[in-house]
């Protein structure tokens, strides 16, 4: 079976983390989000992939190449200007030859579900349940067939949603050719399905597991879930006097210095310097080339490549981009004293504990204080002793 993965969008809701990479390349448990999906599909027996790429395509091409490292074959189709999902599928035309699986690249699925979906009669749509259906395409189902599909409904008619995974035959390309642009000028895949739904020809398959990452703070739960199956591994150097608890995965070339205390699950990438006397609490993933230094504490966070948290820092429940530098003593808060849900730029994270979303290449002077729910744009710079809260734009200089 061939599989088309849609990975051309930026994922605007994930800004500022998408400054250097598309959403699907954001790391969860130190692998791009899309790699987890591709591995699940591979384990379901799929070997031939077409990645539809656009925004930040060079990151995807560089990382996955032709797929041989994963034992799969990948070809690419470019959708450089995003004109909607149907247009994205259309760009893979002629690169798939028979019935094919189509998946959004920004979700996490289990191999078993993918295998089962592939064995359904096409056309078939994977569906799932959620407690906030209004953010998705809401489905009504009758006798195993999809009977209604309503996008981002204010009054959802059910908690069943379109999971963004489909089994199609080549017929879908003809249906796409008949689609007219939507009011926002895009060609929507769901419009191409309207006829099939009306004629009760679109099968529905219930996915046993489905997770999507809508906002930066959703990455923390996804990270924790994916690290649930983490095995302890050490390809680096652990000095004497380091305490490791639970599953801790240490990458090649990384050094954990004496006095460091790590409570798993925790994954540490390649060539990192951790400690001496660092304290890391799960579930935390730390990318390649990072430095977590003396008396720095990290808890339940995602730290991307090349970020330095070197002296007397505290980071909790946060997502930190790549190439950031925290001045000595810079800390961030992750709990409101009124114990309300943390909001980021006015949006409810549905989390009691959340620190900050910090873009790439952000520099903090010494002793900055970052308040709960801060969102900091890529390339921002802060003078020593800055008190930071709310939203800070890309490349802002704060004195």
């Amino acid at each position, binding site marked *: 079976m061939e599989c088309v993965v849609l990975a051309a969008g930026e994922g605007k809701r994930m800004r500022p983390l998408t400054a250097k990479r598309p959403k699907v390349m954001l790391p969860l448990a130190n692998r791009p989000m899309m790699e987890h999906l591709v591995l699940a599909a591979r384990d379901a027996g799929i070997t031939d992939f077409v990645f539809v790429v656009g925004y930040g*395509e*060079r990151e995807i091409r560089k990382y996955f190449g032709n797929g041989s490292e994963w034992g799969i074959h990948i*070809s*690419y*189709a*470019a959708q*450089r*200007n995003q004109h909607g999902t149907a247009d994205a599928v259309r760009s893979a*035309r*002629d*690169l798939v030859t028979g019935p094919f699986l189509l998946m959004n690249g920004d979700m996490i699925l289990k191999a078993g579900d993918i295998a089962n979906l592939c064995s359904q009669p096409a056309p078939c749509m994977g569906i799932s349940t959620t407690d906030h259906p209004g953010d998705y395409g809401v489905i009504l189902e009758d006798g195993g067939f999809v009977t209604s599909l309503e996008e981002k409904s204010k009054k959802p008619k059910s908690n069943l949603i379109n999971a963004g995974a489909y089994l199609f035959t080549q017929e879908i390309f003809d249906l796409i050719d008949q689609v007219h642009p939507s009011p926002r000028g895009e060609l929507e895949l769901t419009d191409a399905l309207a006829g099939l739904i009306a004629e009760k020809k679109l099968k529905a398959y219930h996915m046993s597991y489905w997770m999507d990452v809508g906002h930066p703070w959703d990455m923390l739960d996804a990270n924790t879930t994916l690290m649930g199956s983490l095995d302890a591994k050490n390809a680096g150097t652990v000095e004497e006097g380091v305490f490791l608890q639970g599953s801790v995965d240490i990458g090649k070339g990384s050094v954990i210095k004496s006095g460091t205390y790590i409570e798993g699950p925790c994954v540490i990438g390649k060539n990192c310097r951790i400690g001496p006397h660092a304290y890391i609490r799960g579930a935390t993933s730390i990318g390649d080339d990072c430095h977590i230094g003396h008396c720095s504490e990290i808890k339940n966070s995602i730290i991307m490549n090349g970020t330095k948290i070197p002296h007397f820092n505290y980071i909790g429940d946060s997502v930190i981009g790549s190439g950031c530098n925290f001045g000595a003593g810079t800390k961030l808060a992750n709990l409101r004293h009124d114990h309300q849900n943390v909001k980021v730029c006015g949006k409810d994270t549905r989390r009691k504990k959340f620190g900050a979303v910090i873009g790439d290449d952000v520099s903090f002077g010494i002793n900055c204080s970052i308040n709960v729910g801060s969102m900091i744009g890529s390339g921002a710079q802060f003078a020593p002793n800055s008190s930071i809260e709310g939203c800070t734009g890309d490349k802002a200089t704060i004195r």
Partner: protein
Amino acid sequence: MCGIVGYVGRRDAAPLIVEGLKKLEYRGYDSFGVATIGKSLEFDKHKGRISENARSAIQLKGKIGIGHTRWATHGIPNDANAHPHMDCSGTIAIVHNGIIENYAELKRQLKARGHTFRSDTDTEVVVHLIEEEYGKRKDLLDAVRTVIPKLEGSYALIVIADKEERMIVARNASPLVIGIGDGEIFAASDMTPILEHTERAMFLEDGDIATISREEVTIFNKGKVVKRQLELIDWSLEDVKKGGFAHYMLKEIYEQPQAFYNTIRAVNLETVSEFVRHPLSVTVVACGSSYHAGLIFKYLLEESCRVPVRIEFASEFKYYPPPIEGLVVGITQSGETADTITALKQAKTHNCRTLAITNILGSSVSRLADATIFMRAGPEISVAATKSFIAQLAVLMQIVNNISGTKCNDMLLHAHQSIEEILLINLTDAVSVCAGAKDLFYVGRGPFYAVALEGALKMKEISYIHAEGYAAGELKHGPFALLSSETPVIALCTPGDTYGVMISNIKEMKARGAPVIAIGSEGDSELPDIVDIFIPIPRTTPFVQVLTSLVTLQLLAYYTAVALGRDVDKPRNLAKSVTVE
């Protein structure tokens, strides 16, 4: 300048090529055409803009194709002269950007060997040459490689042939970029048609010939396989069109050395009627910048050739026609300026011979005038004329040169080098003075008076600062009353008969407290001491100093407008071509 695009891949070529050509329209838009290899070679080509007229071209079948959007240089815009051009058998098609300089000779030989020509273009000789070699060698790449050494001039070309699953491209002195897609490869004049499909590109170099299939590009240079760096392109569509410049105007200012050189090379008075070569008297009718070009022409022709020249605003000429005789010359970039066209019509009714100087082949003025000389500026997008003005001067200087017995050939052929030098001039101090002023005066004498007028016009057009050009001696007859420390004066003061009197003029202005910015010759020892800001230009002949001082004033206006945050390419209230009275 024309735009070309080629495609080999997994999708239908025609719609992709049509979309690509629309993006290349800024390089030329008087006609267009597409050819594809479907069951056989199919083509569709028309006079007009592709954005208005592409319905039939999109229908062409096949996954290999080429397209062209034209800016006419050889042969007026019509269906036959539109590219692609086909060989006698209709199985080979070519698109070409550039100029084949030895086409006349090649065409004569090919006709003698029995080839049938369907167009007046220089390009068509290439496809017939390829036809001969392809017949012998049965290999399209070999055929093109054999033909290329026979061509003189500039070219970026793409060739396709029936039953060949590839395109062959070649470049010399015209741009050509190859875009590497997924199971598809593009070739085009620039990245604009490619950007939507891929960010991976290779820029060909002069002498490169490449064969391009769906999956593979092989590049040859001097008979050897060469590699060209694969680059990742981050530019936006607008960035590419502006070629990395902040504004079209700056890009066009930087294209002036090429525009001047190309025009000097292209203007051949021997092919123009006798009445142009030996006029008894000349009347120039023009508007705006073209009027200033005419004024420079007046000074140069009268001094070098002793032919009396009068210069008239075309808009005045119509309502207050002076008694006219001799040759009437109309200068218009677009060839559509209503006033200039009316003035030439009127001249014809007075039984005068008319000559048009324009940038657009087949434009209204070229159909009206008895003779037309085309400048080779290429399309100009910025409203403020820069490279078309320099190209007008190239035509006019070449006319002066010819009438005076081609004494200046060498100087004109090298003038572009001095223009090139001046582009990098540092004007920071002068810009800060101008940007802070409400009024500016530009003064000069002789042809530099006309340069002063044009410099002031550029400043007015794009920076919205009140600027006036004066003949330096006239300043005392009125405007002196306006001079103060608030009114900077830009003075053109180069060596020659008027140098001494200019120096005294400048001293008088300084005495009234006006800050003076002077443009003078490098190495001048007197001028820098008496002025506030001295801008040196290379010490050359007056002809060339007219050009370099002019470019300096264009840059001064441009940087001042940028400093003031003006919309340089689209100044308020102005249109590129004024087609109403």
